[in-house]
Structure formats: C-alpha cells, structure tokens
C-alpha cells in the first residue's frame, strides 16, 4: 500500500457539505486528500451527477460517484451509484488506481 504514496495520488472528495470526510479512502490509499466544497452543486451538475431533491429534507445532493483520472486528466475508471445506500468501496478504487499505467 505504501508505494501508492510515492506515486502522489491525489484524492479530491467533493460534496455540497463542507463537513463531509473521505478519510477511510485516504487511509487505504495512503494518499494525499483534500475535501472540496461544491456548495451550489455547479460542478456536480456539470459532471451530470446531480440528484435533484435527493436529500433528507428535499435538498439537491450529489449522486455517490468515484472517478479515477490518469496524469493526463483522462477518465480511466468510473462508478456511479444508482442507490443512495451505495458508497464508493475504497478497495475497488485502490485496485483501479493501481491499475493505471505509470
């Protein structure tokens, strides 16, 4: 696992909620992570990941999604959830990241 830290994988966890955390994924990949806030869901919308009125109080939220990009910014792995119960599995993501060409 520690070799992934050398590759400098960057994890960006994005949600409209500034308090959301992605520590489990970061710990599994021993990678650098940052929590970004997409407060008005503009980026979420641009990515086609808006779940309109999907929140507990009817607010707009994001569809749980994991995207792996290579160093050229190209999408190499993609998982969109079709249920709110699904969260990205860190083991699946780690496997996809290790599969990227150096």
């Amino acid at each position, binding site marked *: 696992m520690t070799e992934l830290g050398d590759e*400098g994988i960057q994890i960006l966890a994005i949600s409209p909620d500034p308090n959301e955390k992605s520590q*489990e994924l970061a710990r599994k990949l021993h990678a650098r992570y940052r929590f970004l806030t997409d407060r008005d869901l503009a980026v979420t919308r*641009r990515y086609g*990941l808006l779940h309109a009125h999907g929140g507990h109080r009817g607010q707009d*939220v*994001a*569809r749980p*999604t994991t995207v792996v990009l290579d160093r050229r910014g190209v999408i190499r792995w993609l998982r969109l959830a079709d249920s709110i119960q699904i969260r990205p599995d860190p083991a699946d993501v780690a496997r996809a990241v290790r599969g990227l060409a150096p």
Partner: protein
Amino acid sequence: MIRYWPALLSLLVSLAAIAGYVVFLRVPAIRNHPGLYLIAFAVATLIAGAATWRAARWPNVAALALSVVLLLLGGYFNFVLARIPPAPTVLRVGEPAPDFTLPDASGAAVSLASFRERAPVVLVFYRGYW
C-alpha cells in the same frame, strides 16, 4: 413458550438483520449490499410462515406479520425510496474530465487542471448532509 421457538428465531433474524446493517454500515461489504437485509427479512418470513402453517397461534402469526411488514418496508426503501433516477451520461471512460476550481476546507482554491502531469486524481462525489 419453547414450542414457539420458530417465532422467536424469526424475530431474532429480523432484529439481527436491522442491528447488523446499522452497526456495520461503515463496512463497504455490508453497506454496498443492502439486499442482504432483504434476504434476512425473507428468511424470517419463511421461518414464521412455516411455523404459522403448522400452528396458527398468536406468537407465530405475530412473527409472520412483523417479518412481512419489515420485508415490505425494506423492499420499498431499497427498490423505490433509495433509488437515484437515471440521468444523461456526461462522464465517459477515455474522455477528459471537465476542469473545475473549488475551495478546500481552508478556503484555498483547488483546480483540477493543476494536477495534470503531476499525479493521478481520484474524485469522490458524496451526497453531502449524510
């Protein structure tokens, strides 16, 4: 009351399914397979159903009623309430991800393009307000 052990077993299976899902919600293998609690409720229903078939006494009927209610509620939640409606695809494997700039926890602006040629990036979109 020992003769009603199937009713008790049915009840325990239902309660164990609920407790197990809640307790292990943070474990991906459990969380990402919500069908497991439906299977448990179905098993509880079968146990109580078989017991009721043999003796329609109130403990058996009560256990059957409870497991059926849980199965229906769980099924409604899993197949209806929890569903995210399909949406037009924007992201495609093999295509570049749209660039963006968003603030991090300290307020600093982070641009996706800044990682190009430097590092692979994993984007994790969360619902928020979980």
